[in-house]
């Protein structure tokens, strides 16, 4: 598939409508983001492992807003751009998405339910993805066992902020996870009820389930199990799907007065 990608990227570069193409390069035994320019040798272009490229595109926008770029992006990464654009962190007009379809194996490994980018130029979209995301079976919520489960998971936290730093849709100017009003500075492990739930709450209408946070977590906290559940709640209550429509306003960015919660009855009892 890398060969196919090299051809596609070469074509995009040849057309000259972008300054360069952001993708991945294998070099010096390591794979990382790389900006390919017209005329560059594309032999080193590779497609995995996935890096949070929308994050890099956000830096591009911040430091060079007038540069139009191409980017080899997977479905989740494209959805991240949609969320970022709603929060004015990227300009979709300035990014040419070179859609990369995950292989069936990759999609399965991620538990992906959302599928390929809109315009697949590399690979073939995987058919028959599961309708609903399969969550881990967690302990019962009633007797506090589930709370204990989460407390134990979050007690491993070493406060690296990796889940925030790597998140392609985390874009607040001032991060509440670092606000001493909520979370005591320097505490280890940070308090679950503030530090982690602030992050979870902020993810509820923006997480695109790319799982980059889990990949960055040095202690393997199953972060998207929490975010994914919240996401489903928001989806159900606000009829809101992250990463789909750039025009749809994130419900938690608006006042609840304007966007009333759908009645439970209409949802069939939830």
């Amino acid at each position, binding site marked *: 598939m890398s060969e196919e990608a090299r051809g596609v990227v070469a074509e995009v570069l040849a057309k000259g409508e972008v*300054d*360069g193409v*952001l993708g991945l390069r294998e*070099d*010096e*035994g*390591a*794979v*990382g*983001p*790389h*900006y390919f320019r017209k005329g560059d040798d594309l032999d080193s272009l590779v497609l995995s*492992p996935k*890096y*949070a490229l929308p*994050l*890099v595109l956000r*830096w*591009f926008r*911040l*430091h*060079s807003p007038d*540069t139009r*770029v191409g980017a080899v992006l997977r479905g989740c990464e494209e959805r991240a751009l949609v969320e970022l654009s709603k929060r004015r962190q990227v300009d979709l007009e300035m990014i040419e998405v070179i859609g990369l379809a995950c292989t069936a194996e990759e999609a399965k490994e991620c538990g992906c339910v959302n599928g390929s980018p809109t315009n697949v130029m590399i690979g073939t979209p995987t058919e028959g993805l599961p309708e609903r995301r399969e969550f881990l079976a967690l302990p019962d919520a009633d007797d506090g066992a589930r709370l204990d489960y989460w407390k134990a998971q979050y*007690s*491993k936290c*070493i*406060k*690296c*902020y*990796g889940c925030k*730093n*790597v998140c392609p849709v985390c874009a607040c100017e001032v991060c509440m996870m*670092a606000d*001493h009003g909520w979370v005591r*500075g*320097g505490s*280890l*492990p940070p308090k679950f009820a503030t530090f982690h739930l602030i992050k979870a709450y902020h993810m509820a209408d923006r997480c695109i389930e790319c799982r980059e946070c889990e*990949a*960055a*977590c*040095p*202690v*393997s906290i199953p972060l998207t199990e929490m975010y994914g559940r919240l996401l489903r709640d928001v989806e159900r209550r606000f009829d809101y799907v992250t990463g789909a429509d750039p025009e749809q306003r994130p419900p938690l960015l608006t006042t609840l007065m304007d966007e009333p919660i759908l009645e439970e009855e209409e949802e069939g009892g939830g």
Partner: protein
Amino acid sequence: MEYKSVLTTCPYCGCGCNMFLQVIDGHLVGTLPSKTHEISRGSLCIKGWNSHEWVESPDRLRTPLIRGEDGELHPASWDEALDLIGSRLQAIIDDHGGDAVGLLSSARCTNEENYLMQKLARAVVGTNNIDHCARLCHASTVAGLAGTLGSGAMTNSTPDIPLADCILVTGSNTVEQHPLIGSRVILAKERGAKLIVVDPRETPLSTMADIWLHQRPGTDVAWLNAMMHVILREGLEDSEFIEARTEGFEEMRPVLDRYTPQVSEEITGIPAAELEAAARMYASADKGCILYSMGITQHTNGTDNVKSVANLALLTGNMGRKGTGVNPLRGQNNVQGACDMGALYNVFPGYQKVADEAARAKFDEAWGVTCSDVTGLTVVEMMHAAHDGKMKGMLILGENPMLSDPDINHVREALSTLDLLVVIDIFLSETAAMADIVLPAASWAEREGTFTATDRRVQRIRKAIEPVGESRPDWRIICDIAGRLGAEGFDFQSPVHIMEEVVTVTPQYGGIDYERLEEGGLQWPCPSPDHPGTPILHVDKFTRGLGLFSAVEHQEPNELPDDEYPMTLTTGRMMFHYHTGTQTRRTPALDQEVPTGYVELNPEDAKRLGVNDGQMVEVKSRRGKIHIPAEVTEKVQPGVVFIPFHFAECAANLLTNPALDPVAKIPEFKVCAVSVEPVKGGA
């Protein structure tokens, strides 16, 4: 728009994580952990994630500075500064001899730069007065493990720590000091490995340990001996291993016989039954792994502590296999390499002894000089020599003894008496501020070279941006100083060429070259170009042949609490800051976590002293006093207080005791006597 993603090695601790520095139009904009690197695996700690933040700080030194007649430092040209250093250093050497000069190298700098610093000392200045802050952290490891195993380094590799069935962590706050090793311990524990923590202070690992023993600070030999006593009493030792691979067991045994768990309890305060349980847990594991750090080494009996740790692993055959070993966790990005390169008073590169005539002859020939056979001075001894007027000039590379050394008042007096103090650094540190001449160095993101991580992993750092201002890479500066002293053999064009010389004189690094390092790190010993490197030491035989048991007795710390100074101070570091804070305190993400220092005080003591959480207290020792806010916490035991040493405004090292381990010359940072009282009128 120019965008680069530059693979490099983290500049902080010894884990050796790899990251991509994110560069847009010549400026650092972010950091991404390498997903394909064996240590980082897509993760970093908070320091690594924010390591780009201080690099282009407005506080960076941008030109050389020379102290004028008005007593102030003034910008100068490189030629002015280098010429002045050359002439003044030469005058000291001519008038007082090379031994009137002391050089401090830096565990923050590359292997190539450390190699050059010790070469400058030995081949140009003509002295063995070369040392660096390894003296303050793992000198006792280098001495203790070299004696017992033959190699003073971590026996195993970071990736194989999670393979252990039982991990014994002592004197290491692993999660905070080596986060990506700590995270492996956490994951191993979650997977079912047993975890024993022996530490006087609560740490993130102690709270999740199967057994946490908190000893009275400075009593490690006693509990280690008692553990071995229990293991022998219950027949849990590995007799086959002892028989085949070790010597000295019979000589050690009578000493262990006396250290019953009850004797240990009297000395250490660890309940005998808990100690017995820990001994059984460690000894019955198939693969037992020991991680240790400053809590073991920074004592006047640090070398004995290290030997005792080695005894325990030898006794149970936990050596030479995956998931086992004696693993000193080295605190700095390149403290392992700085030692390997011979930035130590008694050894050339590759731990070849200065006292050994054959080794001297080898370096005489390699460098075309006659190396001095006069024993050099160590970090603390240099300060004494300066204080006594015997040392006239010092050249300090990337170290900040005005905050990192014990008894800072003494350090200040010592440095003030020097005829010439030259400091090479990236910021105007507390030490640089006292210098006659300051040279601005390029940071780790601005130069090439190699760092050696705690598991002996030699890795590349790569230039991501141009040096800020007129700053220059340290290797270039050292070469220029050597040139001003008329030396030959310093005309290197790049770090590649320096490494080419390093490998010819350093057997462990014999097979290392930059081209091979492009494919990833190499773990020494790597003696030849076709050698794959050595993830685990002592597999079939110890570096010294047989593993040596040492009979070691408990010895009380140098300074114990008394009526005037009734409490015990222990010092250390924290997750959010690094050493003297020159970098981390200029990093907004870290400064906002912890903006200043504090003294941890047990609630019982706080109540007795009438101190509330956050209240300013005066902590006083025989050497100095500081005002510092109290953090009332059960992390410390009654009678013990803890202060992180990162903060100049409440510097723990104004209080610490410079008493030295007689073998390793490491100061006793972990124990001194202090008094604590509320500051009058303090809120």
